């Protein structure tokens, strides 16, 4: 306990007031994101109809009580499919985000702490990877490795490593120049200790906001791939693939393609609102 108290000052760079009021838009973001996270966990259990069941033999049915958002191309309930699809939309995106942030963050901490040619080599490599448009990268990966959920997660993860690396590195380089890091170095601490105990705790705030944005990118990329028919494959469906399969109905004025796209829009805008209004974030 006493050792924690002694180390405390080193972990606080700028003192911030304990409580900062969260603006209204921030609350909207929190509510929307929390809603979809709950849906991602419990959605498949809460659906009014089973997601794969045909309840309307004609397909592209209108919005009526019991089938609040109409029926889709095969006559399945759109509302149920959106609720169940939250899991396949949010899950892989979270996994990809964690992967990207873990790899990018570790490499960035190493680059900042070690410096020298390792830093230069890593930064140059990241610049090269970032010069490929993300959707193009995804298409080539799918062409080469085929479509499966692990491939999708790894692809999206790798695509967003350079972005995470850049943010983490620029933050870590600043922290690395602090006196207490030099002291730790003089003390003879090993590189893993300096990365983990001295630098990492001082990055957490800004890095969390970056995680949110990277999650939005991952959601957009994965659902774009699904929309192109190169992401989540049937019988599983995420919101992107639901837009794709219901696209033909648009010509008859059936809104089945609009609702999953709108669900995606609320999720991504919600995360943006949340991240922009995080307490203590400079605006």
């Amino acid at each position: 306990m006493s050792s924690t108290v002694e180390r405390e000052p080193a972990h606080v760079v700028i003192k911030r007031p304990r409580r900062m009021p969260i603006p209204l838009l921030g609350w909207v973001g929190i509510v929307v994101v929390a809603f979809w996270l709950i849906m991602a966990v419990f959605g498949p259990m809460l659906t009014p109809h089973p997601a794969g069941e045909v309840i309307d033999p004609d397909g592209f049915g209108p919005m009526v009580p019991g089938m609040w958002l109409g029926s889709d191309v095969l006559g399945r309930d759109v509302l149920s499919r959106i609720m169940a699809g939250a899991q396949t939309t949010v899950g892989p995106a979270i996994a990809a985000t964690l992967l990207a942030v873990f790899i990018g963050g570790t490499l960035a901490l190493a680059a900042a702490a070690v410096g020298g040619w390792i830093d230069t080599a890593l930064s140059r490599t990241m610049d090269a990877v970032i010069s490929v448009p993300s959707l193009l990268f995804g298409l080539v990966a799918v062409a080469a490795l085929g479509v499966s959920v692990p491939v999708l997660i790894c692809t999206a993860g790798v695509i967003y490593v350079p972005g995470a690396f850049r943010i983490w590195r620029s933050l870590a380089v600043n922290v690395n120049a602090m006196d207490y890091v030099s002291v730790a170095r003089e003390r003879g601490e090993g590189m893993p200790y300096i990365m983990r105990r001295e630098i990492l705790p001082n990055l957490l705030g800004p890095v969390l906001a970056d995680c949110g944005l990277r999650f939005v990118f991952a959601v957009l990329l994965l659902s774009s791939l699904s929309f192109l028919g190169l992401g989540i494959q049937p019988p599983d469906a995420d919101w992107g693939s639901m837009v794709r399969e219901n696209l033909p109905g648009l010509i008859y004025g059936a809104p089945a393609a609009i609702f999953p796209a709108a669900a995606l829009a609320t999720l991504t805008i919600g995360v943006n609102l949340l991240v922009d209004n995080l307490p203590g974030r400079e605006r």
Partner: protein
Amino acid sequence: MRPALAVTGFLLKRLLFAAGTLLAVSLAVFAATEILPGDVAGAVLGQSATPEALAALRASMHLDLPASVRYLHWLGGMVTGDVGHSLVNNRPVSELIGSRLPNSLLLAGAATAFCVPIGLLLGICSAMRPTSVFDRVTSVATLSIVAVPEFFIGTLAVLVFAVNLRWFPALTLSPRIDSVEGFFRSMTLPVLSLSGIIIAQIMRMTRAALLDVLRRPYVEMARLKGVVGARLVLFYALPNALGPIANALALSLSHLLGGAIIIETIFNFPGLAKLLVDAVSTRDMPLVQACTMLFCLAYLILGTLADIAGMLANPRLRAS
């Protein structure tokens, strides 16, 4: 070093970096599409192929050579335009690309001509009165447009303009450039859907660049001398923001590439991006390779232009 020399040096360095990146990308694309998917000859001939036929095809496709030799051969083909044959319909890849490229360039050109003036105008207007109602509304609108998926804007546009209002067709099977009316009928919806995100990007970056200049001391000085409003922004701030704005324009236009992949799919637009998506779903590797390299080339050109514009417009960077 003399400024002119410094500029040449910078340009050379930037071009070298772009060329190096393109080479690295080509290596990655080749590695991903040639080495990983296994036996191309087997894929072409199917399961009933005899070993002799397989061996003969492998030899004719140079598959019996080591990967490094095949890479150099392939790279040479890319440079000279001989990019092989499609595995699906056996037509030369260059012919397939040649028939689609004009359509994609038309779409990109029309979108650029539409987006750049509107984006700049909106950006300048909102920078003139930051925190005004106009600025707030455009900020929220552009933030939302950037945050939502491109196919949301596209499908919404189809529902409103093609289905409910019946102004335009929902599909663009062939862009028509024979008449003005045909051009507008076939191109308006794809261009509109593609434009949303690009206008938003141009607007946000123009606004940020202008506001950054407006915070400088010399602008404060001009303000104290009584220069206000449009005159201050247009004649005092804008000239110094041109570099960052040109940079922002090039970066925003690189969103055309990703956007085109989605938009061409929604409207069944016969462009390069649709060709690429179809090639990926049929795993037609020569076509995937050629299209990917073309897209990366376009992306790199825009990125390099952005850097060069930013550098040339900044006297201090130019001199250092």
